[in-house]
């Protein structure tokens, strides 16, 4: 097909603003999926995504559309995630497109993340088509929403399209606009191949599958390919596209979007952002890649059954393939055994990974409280990064502890402004400025410690604004803080899984909460067990688990010893599964429950 008849585009939208529904309409109108067979939200392939209504992985679907007099177009719709955790994935998808539909729910208005992503698209030189969705809703406020969009993009509000993804109203017009307004891809098919890997996934039969945007040249089946950044060489087994199922074809030309498979099974060898070229006719330079995604939130991930450790490692290897932002390193916890310290983009990312490990790999896991990465300067002027609180150097050796901050933008209706400013203050935020966007929305700009956001900031934001406030942020580096390491000691022994780095002023509250919780969860032993929270050697909170007093079978009927034997056998068996912290026996479940509950209220 003539390159001029290809359009590569994506939809930028906040969660629930109707991206999947709109994509469904596109698939129907273009007969890519017969409407009666239309599985809801076809693009969301992963079951998990479907349930959560979010799209994690960028993927591409090819559609055919004819405009007027038999003019045939090939439309490649590249899916983008909507959550702030995944803004780096958005940026990857954007590079594969020439245009974007900016979709906003008429009843909700623009959300902060949408603004952020729109700027990314503008910076990337994409053509943006502003669209207001859900105009069928009684609560729809098309005029105001169109105004906001026009202001944001610096266009006339008359240029904003109105659609209902649900009823299909305006969707044909939108498709026409996609064809007419978004430029076709450029790029010379005669040049040596340069194709950008913008996403990948794993298939048990085909191995690693890379989603590519061919920028120059042509990629074809049987070609001996070179991944330029990693130097990995491999023959290309299959070339194809999704429409919406996997369809293999001879080749993909400059300007096109599709997938390749190489049979490579080792998930770590193909890197998203890499450039593929032809071994025989190599391109000179890599395409401008994406920035490596930087995980900012860390947590220990441990199998509940120690035997699952190897499986967990395999599962992480596989997940990593379709989720290059995920990082992981082996670690060993006294309380939890062998596991991995994993790095995530944010809390949502962490939850998604955890759920995928559970659902797709059947692994039962314990995940410790999330922490951010700290930059620690020691007295001998060494700088180390601490991803696990228990790796924190001794207080005496510390010169300064710096924590990651973000530049946050919060959009909120004026009525809730006061609440939100208060929240920002509680969370150690540094207020910067406030701009009235329209009568409906105020933009608050502030600096916040990332550690505050990884906990429940988002929930608080929503609950204190009746769901109206929205948040976007970008990392701005490390700033010094009044931070200390808090250890939890059970019977005098520190338990690494509960160590935390906290603001000095919150140490007592946090320590108290955890010790109380552990007191409730740890079964009584034969002796009193103190549970303490301590900074260095100084105890800031203390609870006592009183000794067990009564655990006895008072009667054995008529010489029925079997019953008693069974009971003791069970008890013995239970004992064997206990984790020992010093002399204290703690069932793993107690750790798990304590950690689960603690997650909600990690230190301020």
């Amino acid at each position, binding site marked *: 097909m003539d390159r001029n008849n290809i359009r590569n585009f994506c939809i930028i939208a906040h969660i629930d603003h109707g991206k999947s529904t709109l994509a469904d309409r596109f698939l129907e109108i273009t007969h890519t999926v017969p409407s009666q067979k239309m599985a809801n939200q076809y693009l969301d392939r992963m079951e998990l995504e479907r349930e959560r209504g979010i799209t994690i992985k960028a993927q591409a679907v090819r559609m055919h559309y004819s405009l007027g007099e038999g003019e045939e177009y090939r439309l490649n719709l590249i899916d983008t995630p909507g959550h702030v955790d995944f803004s780096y994935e958005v940026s990857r998808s954007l590079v594969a497109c020439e245009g974007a539909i900016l979709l906003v729910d008429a009843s909700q208005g623009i959300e902060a993340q949408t603004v952020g992503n729109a700027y990314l698209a503008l910076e990337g030189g994409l053509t943006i088509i502003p669209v207001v969705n859900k105009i069928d809703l009684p609560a729809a406020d098309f005029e105001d929403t169109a105004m906001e969009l026009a202001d944001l993009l610096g266009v006339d509000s008359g240029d904003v399209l109105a659609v209902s993804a649900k009823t299909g109203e305006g969707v044909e017009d939108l498709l026409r606009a996609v064809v007419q307004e978004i430029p076709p891809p450029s790029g010379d098919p005669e040049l040596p191949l340069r194709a950008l890997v913008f996403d990948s996934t794993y298939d048990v039969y085909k191995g690693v599958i890379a989603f590519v945007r061919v920028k120059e040249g042509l990629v074809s089946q049987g070609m001996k390919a070179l991944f330029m950044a990693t130097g990995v060489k491999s023959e290309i087994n299959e070339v194809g596209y999704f429409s919406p199922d996997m369809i293999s074809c001879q080749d993909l030309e400059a300007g096109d979007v599709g997938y390749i498979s190489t049979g490579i099974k080792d998930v770590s060898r193909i890197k998203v952002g890499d450039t593929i070229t032809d071994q025989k006719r190599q391109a000179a330079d890599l395409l401008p890649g994406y920035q490596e995604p930087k995980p900012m939130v860390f947590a220990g991930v441990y199998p509940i059954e120690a035997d699952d450790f190897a499986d967990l490692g395999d599962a992480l290897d596989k997940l990593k393939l379709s989720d290059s932002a995920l990082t992981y390193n082996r670690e060993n916890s006294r309380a939890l055994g062998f596991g991995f310290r994993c790095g995530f983009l944010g809390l949502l990312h962490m939850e998604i990974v955890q759920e995928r490990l559970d659902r797709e790999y059947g692994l039962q896991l314990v995940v410790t409280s999330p922490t951010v990465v700290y930059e620690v300067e020691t007295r001998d002027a060494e700088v180390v990064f601490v991803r696990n609180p228990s790796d924190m150097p001794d207080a005496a050796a510390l010169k300064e502890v710096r924590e990651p901050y973000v530049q946050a933008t919060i959009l909120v209706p004026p009525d809730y402004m006061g609440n939100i400013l208060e929240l920002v203050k509680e969370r150690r935020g540094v207020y910067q400025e406030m701009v009235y966007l329209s009568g409906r929305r105020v933009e608050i700009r502030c600096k916040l410690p990332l550690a505050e956001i990884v906990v429940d900031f988002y929930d608080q934001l929503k609950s204190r604004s009746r769901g109206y406030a929205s948040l976007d942020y970008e990392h701005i580096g490390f700033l010094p803080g009044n931070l200390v390491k808090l250890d939890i000691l059970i019977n005098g022994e520190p338990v690494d899984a509960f160590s935390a780095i906290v603001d000095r002023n919150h140490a007592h509250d946090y320590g108290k909460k955890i010790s109380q919780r552990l007191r409730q969860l740890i079964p*009584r032993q*034969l*002796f009193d067990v103190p549970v303490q929270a301590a900074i260095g050697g100084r105890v800031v909170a203390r609870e006592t688990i*009183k000794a*067990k*007093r*009564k*655990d*006895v*079978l*008072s*009667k*054995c*009927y*008529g*010489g*029925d*010893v*079997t019953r*008693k*034997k*069974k*009971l*003791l*056998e069970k*008890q*013995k068996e239970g*004992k*064997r599964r206990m984790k020992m912290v010093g*002399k204290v026996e703690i069932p793993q479940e107690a750790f798990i429950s304590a950690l689960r509950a603690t997650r909600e209220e990690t230190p301020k």
Partner: protein
Amino acid sequence: MRLYIHWPFCVSRCAYCDFNSRVASRELHALYHHALITEIENRSRCIGEERRDLGSLYLGGGTPSIMKGEEVARFLEEVFRYFRRGPGTEVTVEVNPADWCAGDFIQAREGGVNRFSMGVQSLSDDVLAFLGRRHSANQAVEAMRSALASGADVSADLLCALPAAGRLSASDSLSDVLDLGPHHISLYGLTLEKSTPLAKRVELGEVALPGEDEAADEYLALVSTLGERGYEQYEISNFSRPGYESRHNLAYWSREEYLGVGAGAHSLIAERRFSNRSSVLQYIENIKSGGSTLESYEVLNLSERESEEIMLGLRTTAGVREELVGHSVDGLEALGLIVRRLGRIRLTPSGMLVSNTIIAGLLPDVDSLRCA
């Protein structure tokens, strides 16, 4: 050899009870009685001559005192046709205080019974009503007196760890019972058994059982009262004046051989543990048809025997040989939960209260406790 005979019938069920007992017609009693004698006869034949000499006999239930004193005497007469009673044979019958008058005790005594185990449980009428017992406090006192007057040894069963109101009375009941001068006391903590009426009431929140600490404190106080009054503890729940320990009871803990007959009865013979079907009807049916009454059968190997020795021995104040226990007990000793003496270890009263935890910790680590 020791013989346990199970009488699985009661006049009515107590609120806390999940023993193998039921309310049944006189006809069923008779059929069962017949089956029992048949089993006793059968077993006596194949058990080996020397095992027919009885060290002790225990007629338990259920409520064997549903039979009158004279019936018990006649029943024992039949039993003694197959198992020989000697001058030192301890013969115990469990008696519900509602059932017998002075004459019954005397007749039972004449039939060979020399020990009565009285199901007193409490001497507070409120508590007795709450427990669903059939007798009053007065009846219990009367029955105790008659039993003692018959010249037999008398033991009283008492319950502790009762709900709030009953707790105060447990120590009163104990003093009152001790004033009557029994030879032996069995003190059991009330335990909630699934799907008993009591468990339902607790579930509904109508009554609350005492907490761990309260129950433990009460037990220790009762144990010390017993000690002060000259009743020595020889097992977690059993106390006696010197020389009046129940030999039958002790046999269970020291792994002596015993044969249990009747529905659901357990035996230990020649290092085999086996038990009968607990269903009365099935039991009768099996006996009639000459089929097997067995429900479980297990041959104990050496390590199982040793585990049992620890598990059972530690229930008694005799304890176990220290060398039997492969784990260090220094920690337990420091906590005052065990005492070491003359190469043996035994639990203190506080240790007995947490005996499950301690024993589970001291058992060998191998899977030696597999049960059939």
